[in-house]
């Protein structure tokens, strides 16, 4: 069935179709409507979800954590300062293996206060242990939301997951999308798998959130680090099942005209669409360019990235966030790490673009590809990091 909805409304609809047991949330721009519309479904009796309107995002994630550890299917939505305010609970949710799915309409962090699209919020959560899916379009955001539940709850995974899409650019855009029937969503997901131990299981009591000092902390963390190795297989399996149901097939990455591309742009979320359009334009001029879009950012798909960038001569990584005081943007750091010991690695450069919702235009993308070609002529990116679309 086709519908034309604003992405936030569409995601609220997806949540209605999923009908989680518990949603604890505190609204924040630009994801407010997800919570607002969903709370209307609850008030109208369309879903039986226990909706907990809390006093802050910290409490939202705390309530989600307890509900999830009791074995419930749990969702919430946030952005920017809200995700930042959840920060300490994010770590606890991941280490506790609580498969909460959190919708994030990516937005810049203060200061200065800004409500628009930017990846600083989710990038700030990149070391918390949460899985992360990223979406270019409303359709991808909808499809990722449904798949995220199945990935996160899989007994081989059991990690919480962020579902990202750009604030305003995507969250407030109306697109025509293909949606599933409620029944199809529910049968695709099935019942939430029962965890081995749960907070409300009085037959099998366990201590949760325990203390582990010098003698055990490292073992707990080492075990957590290892558990991410299963995730990619499950992401692909779920994508396969979802493709059978919908005909829409997803991977870990999306490779756009990479086979013979000399210069490759790596991008995430909505800018990847602009980049693909620009590639089509530049291809008509005979330039061998391509785009690599990251769908699964956590766990970071090191092998897939090595493989996708294997033929490129020059790679420009576009970050919509910056690591202040650090060497580059966060995505660049990780791509560079993935390639550091490769024998025939491409030249690598980083651009910072679109902070605080500044448009990333096709002209910007053309300029970025130009930087990639210039690096090929000169033999290196100089400087390593360039800010694009900023007045200077």
């Amino acid at each position, binding site marked *: 069935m086709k519908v034309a909805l604003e992405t936030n409304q569409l995601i609220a609809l997806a949540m209605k179709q999923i009908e989680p047991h518990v949603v604890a949330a505190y609204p924040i721009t630009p994801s407010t409507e997800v919570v607002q519309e969903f709370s209307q479904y609850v008030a109208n009796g369309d879903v039986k979800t226990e909706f907990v309107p809390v006093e802050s995002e910290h409490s939202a994630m705390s309530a989600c954590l307890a509900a999830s550890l009791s074995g419930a299917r749990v969702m919430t939505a946030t952005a920017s300062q809200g995700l930042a305010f959840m920060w300490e609970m994010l770590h606890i949710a991941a280490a506790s293996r609580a498969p909460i799915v959190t919708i994030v309409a990516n937005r810049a962090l203060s200061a200065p206060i800004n409500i628009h699209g930017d990846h600083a919020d989710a990038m700030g959560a990149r070391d918390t242990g949460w899985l992360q899916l990223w979406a270019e379009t409303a359709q991808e955001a909808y499809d990722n939301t449904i798949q995220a539940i199945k990935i996160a709850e899989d007994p081989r995974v059991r990690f919480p997951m962020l579902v990202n899409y750009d604030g305003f650019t995507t969250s407030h855009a109306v697109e025509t999308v293909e949606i599933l029937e409620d029944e199809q969503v529910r049968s695709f997901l099935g019942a939430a798998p029962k965890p081995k131990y749960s907070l409300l299981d009085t037959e099998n009591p*366990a201590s949760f959130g325990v203390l582990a000092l010098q003698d055990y902390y490292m073992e707990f963390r080492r075990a957590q680090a290892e558990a991410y190795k299963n995730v990619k297989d499950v992401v692909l399996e779920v994508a396969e099942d979802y493709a059978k149901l919908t005909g829409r097939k997803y991977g870990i990455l999306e490779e756009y005209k990479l086979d013979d591309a000399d210069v490759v742009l790596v991008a995430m979320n909505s800018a990847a669409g602009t980049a693909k359009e620009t590639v089509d334009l530049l291809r008509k001029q005979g330039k061998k360019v391509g785009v690599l879009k990251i769908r699964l950012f956590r766990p970071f798909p090191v092998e897939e990235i090595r493989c996708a960038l294997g033929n490129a001569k020059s790679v420009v990584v576009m970050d919509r966030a910056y690591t202040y005081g650090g060497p580059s943007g966060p995505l660049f750091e990780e791509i560079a790490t993935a390639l550091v010991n490769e024998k025939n690695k491409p030249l690598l450069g980083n651009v910072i673009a679109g902070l605080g919702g500044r448009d990333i235009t096709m002209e910007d993308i053309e300029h970025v590809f130009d930087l990639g070609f210039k690096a090929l002529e000169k033999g290196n990116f100089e400087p390593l990091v360039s800010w694009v679309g900023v007045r200077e």
Partner: protein
Amino acid sequence: MNEQKWNELPEGVIVPEGGNSQDVYIVEGWRTFKPVVNLEKCTHCMTCWVMCPDNAVNVKGGKMLGFDYLACKGCGVCAEVCPVKVIEMVKEER
């Protein structure tokens, strides 16, 4: 103590059984004073058992039997709350 390796731990930050910290965390060395009960005068009211923060009061069949000195940190709550004042805090001599 048999220390588990990382791949022997249960999933998540849980301990899948109750009350096992008594075998792991021995705290008798923390004490400056230790509680000593006069069982001849004890009324077995269980107030100390309820109030002890470390589950260090040994009880069986409704009777107070004494203290688990491996688990007792010597906080003195039991002596403070005892309604008949038959628990005395005695200085540890080491």
